């Protein structure tokens, strides 16, 4: 079932423009017209009209409909992009988010008129806190990386409130790239901690690096090789003994729902990717949402406002003197909060536990089926994703990129490639719990077919993809000579 491409359609809407064509006719103004040139200072007036596309409504509809036919997403194809949890997004979430009381509520409506929305936020924060074993949750961050940034700022505020100026944050070399990025932006020096060959934290190396200048240790559990960190409790205790806060990157939370909780493992902070674990749309269908949970000692530093409950009344509390402040417009990506809450309530505790059980089962099924044809990065069992290396294939001239491209021809989105960085020619496969065994089998068949082609007919792999709207893109040229801005051609 290959992806049959619509003929490539590569127009920009600007290129459809025809002078004077409009999509909408505005009614005559029912107030006196004013001349902007008389109201605004000269320096703010533009000389030329903006280069906006001039198109009809029909042009717009046809343009975007054609583009949408080239979409390649989880609604059309298996999408085993490791670390991204590309699972099915239940349509009931969309129903709930479109309820007029949520969808048409003005973000600046008075609290008395927004009680339902505030109640939902309050309840979701409590549910997330319970799931993660945390004491309080802020729903404000708009994505995982902003959740990390928020968490690190709270850790910083906590240390400063105790009169401690710590300057470093420790991060394993297997981490998501966002970890060092958010940490650096929060003003810390990032110190990389080497992992053991099997991807686990080198506890002895960590112990040697921990000192009173370290503010936090940031780690993903399960780790980016899809393995649970066996000594995690020892690690969090080791950190706490040195006054070091421990941050859990919650990107892989889909593996541990109802099985264990970051708070119980000793973490002080963790974030939740609602667009991964909690089925809100991902990527172009976003936006994301990255709530962050904390233990009680960090609660005073949460971003403002915090939703509070007094009897049956909900309110926004802005009077929090130790707060790190506000970091997102309005109240976070509220529509995503409605979807995530819907998901949690429809699944219930047993349902969420089954999510992780099945996510783990699916990943192990794939790992087992591929282990003869690819080198498994770390011998299993794994958690919700598995990492295989194409180092065997590379010796025959076929790289992880080549395999990824060939998969597109065979009807699958590609796994994450070249991540984690500590695995050579990495292919990181996360099937999620929402895929049926038939789909997993078709994917494994395709992977095994590619391994056979590598030995017998590598040309077909090097030529891939053949069936997509565009062929193999020149990544190097795109990065070295990016052409990012449309300009009007004569």
């Amino acid at each position, binding site marked *: 079932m290959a992806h049959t491409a619509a003929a490539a359609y590569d127009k920009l809407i600007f290129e459809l423009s025809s002078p004077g064509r409009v999509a909408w006719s505005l009614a005559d103004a029912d107030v006196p017209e004013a001349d902007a040139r008389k109201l605004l200072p000269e320096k703010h007036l533009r000389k030329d009209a903006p280069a906006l596309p001039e198109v009809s409504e029909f042009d717009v509809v046809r343009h975007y409909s054609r583009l949408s036919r080239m979409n390649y997403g989880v609604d059309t194809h298996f999408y085993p992009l490791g670390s991204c949890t590309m699972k099915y997004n239940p349509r009931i979430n969309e129903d709930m988010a479109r309820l007029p009381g949520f969808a048409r509520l003005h973000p600046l409506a008075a609290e008395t008129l927004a009680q339902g929305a505030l109640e939902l936020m309050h309840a979701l924060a409590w549910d997330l806190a319970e799931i993660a074993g945390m004491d309080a949750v802020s729903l404000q961050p708009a994505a995982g990386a902003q959740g990390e940034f928020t968490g690190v700022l709270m850790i910083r505020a906590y240390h400063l409130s105790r009169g401690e100026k710590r300057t470093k944050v420790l991060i394993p070399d297997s981490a998501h*790239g966002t970890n060092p990025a958010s940490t650096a932006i929060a003003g810390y020096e990032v110190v*990389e901690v080497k992992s053991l060959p099997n991807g686990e934290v080198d506890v002895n190396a960590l112990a040697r690096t921990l000192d009173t200048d370290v503010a936090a240790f940031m780690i993903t559990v399960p780790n980016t090789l899809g393995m649970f960190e066996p000594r995690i409790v020892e690690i969090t205790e080791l950190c706490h003994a040195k006054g070091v806060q421990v941050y859990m990157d919650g990107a892989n939370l889909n593996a541990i729902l109802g099985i264990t909780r970051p708070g119980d493992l000793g973490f002080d902070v963790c974030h939740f990717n609602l667009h991964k674990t909690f089925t809100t749309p991902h990527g172009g269908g976003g936006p994301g949402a990255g709530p962050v949970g904390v233990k009680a000692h960090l609660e005073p530093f949460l971003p403002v406002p915090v939703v509070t409950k007094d009897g049956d009344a909900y309110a926004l509390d802005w009077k929090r003197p130790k707060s790190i402040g506000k970091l997102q417009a309005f109240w976070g990506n509220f529509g995503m909060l409605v979807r995530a809450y819907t998901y949690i309530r429809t699944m219930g505790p047993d349902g969420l536990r089954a999510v992780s059980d099945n996510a783990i089962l699916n990943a192990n099924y794939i790992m087992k089926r591929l282990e003869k044809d690819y080198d498994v990065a770390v011998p299993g069992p794994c958690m919700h994703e598995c990492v295989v290396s194409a180092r065997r294939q590379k010796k025959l001239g076929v790289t992880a990129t080549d395999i990824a491209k060939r998969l597109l021809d065979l009807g699958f989105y590609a796994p994450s490639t*070249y991540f984690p*960085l500590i695995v*050579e020619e990495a292919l990181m496969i996360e099937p999620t719990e929402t895929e049926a065994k038939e789909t997993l089998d078709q994917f494994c068949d395709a992977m095994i077919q590619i391994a056979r082609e590598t030995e017998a007919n590598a040309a077909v792999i090097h030529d891939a993809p053949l069936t997509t709207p565009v062929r193999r893109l020149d*990544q*190097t040229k795109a*990065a*070295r000579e990016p052409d990012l801005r449309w300009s009007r051609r004569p």
Partner: protein
Amino acid sequence: MANVPKDLKYTREHEWAKQEGDRVRVGITAYAQEQLGDVVFVELPKVGAKVTASKNFGVVESVKAVSDLFAPVSGEVVEINGELSQKPETVNQDTYGRGWMIVVKPSNGGEWDQLLTPQQYEEFLAQAAH
């Protein structure tokens, strides 16, 4: 096995260092550029900046990954390879030659002896392969 010239010293982070009088020229090894793939961007410190042995002094970005560059020795940057901002591919084409990155005036002569010899670096690479 990647090319490891005999007249250089090496770091475990895959930088090479070359003694030139009282200066040390620094770049990344053939192994590093092979692992990175096509280099698309190189960020270097300014002339006059201080660098510290085993601390990062810049960034190299390829189509696969962004990696820190680590200084083999401490000292002051006295020269940088300005060509790399326009032609980062030089790192792939001539990593031990025109693909050099910075020249350092070392502040601690003892650090030179801590660097890996060509033979030690080859052994290190052989270990990493398994």
